[in-house]
């Protein structure tokens, strides 16, 4: 076996072990088995909530995706509250009472978030108005009636091109 082959095998081995190590945390996902909730409806509410609630430590992950200990605690709490018979809105209220609206991935519509919700629509309307304005202006130009003189010049030019080709 030549040195080059040996070297490339070594590199492969290293790459492979790096892959295994980097995949490790993902395996942890299935851990922490919470028992199924009594009804399908409750299970659905739970599944929806852990997708919509934010893991506050990691900021850009929801409770479902996060491995953080706080996320596990909040999943357990959500599970517990639903098992107690609380509905979607009651769990949301419970969480926002404690952690603020930041815990929700979808920010609620209220005075402090009007700009957040409104600006995209405002921007859309502004751009739409500009586009309509442009199109109108352009179509106005096309609609201009040619005077007799202009038409004659244009015809002459076109004739000339025909002759040339």
């Amino acid at each position, binding site marked *: 076996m030549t040195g080059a082959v040996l070297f490339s095998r070594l590199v492969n081995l290293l790459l492979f072990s790096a892959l295994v190590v980097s995949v490790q945390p993902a395996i942890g996902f299935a851990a922490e088995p919470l028992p199924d909730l009594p009804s399908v409806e409750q299970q659905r509410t739970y599944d929806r909530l852990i997708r919509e609630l934010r893991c506050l*430590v990691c900021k850009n992950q929801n409770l479902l995706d996060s491995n953080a200990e*706080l996320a596990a*605690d909040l999943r357990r709490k959500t599970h517990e509250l639903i098992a107690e018979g609380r509905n979607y809105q009651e769990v949301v209220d419970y969480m926002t009472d*404690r*952690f*603020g609206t*930041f815990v929700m991935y979808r920010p609620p519509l209220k005075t402090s978030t009007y700009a957040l919700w409104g600006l995209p629509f405002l921007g859309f309307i502004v751009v739409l108005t500009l586009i309509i304005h442009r199109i109108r202006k352009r179509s106005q130009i096309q609609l201009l009636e040619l005077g007799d003189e202009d038409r004659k010049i244009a015809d002459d030019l076109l004739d000339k091109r025909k002759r040339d080709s």
Partner: protein
Amino acid sequence: MKLSKKRYKAIWPFVVFCGLAVLLYISLGKDPQHIPSPLIGKPAPDFTLPDLQNHSLLSKQDMQGNVWLLNVWASWCVACVEEHPLLNDLSASGIVLIVGLNYKDVQNNAVEWLDKHGNPYSFIAVDASGDVGIDYGVYGVPETFLVDQSGYIQYKHVGPLNPEIISQQILPLIRLLQEQES
């Protein structure tokens, strides 16, 4: 006339740029880790937890009538070591009652940690499950709450305390609350 209108139009990208620059500059000074707590101005959540030192039950009512600090800590928390001397000093000064909330910790580790770093707490509530932490909206240790005589949360700080926060925010607030009482 036509030229001036064109010039007027050309200024818009510049205006938008300035607006964005101002917004970004303002955000630069903000701490992205800081999440405003909805608990400020509200009654501190009730709790009944064992005390780390004497194993009797401890509840919020035991602090009634005092201005108190609730410091959330754990032996596994690295930043807690950083702020701990400040709490020790504050405790020695006797200005305010300091209560610890030992958050998701192992009892022996917690006791050892206090032996090593000093114990500024008059009481230490043991929250092994983290449930009381959830009630207080704890998402990062250390966190510190200031609670007034009637049990209302007046102030919250997330992350390690520093001398500026204590002297410029916490101490004046304690003084104010204690004056209102007398």
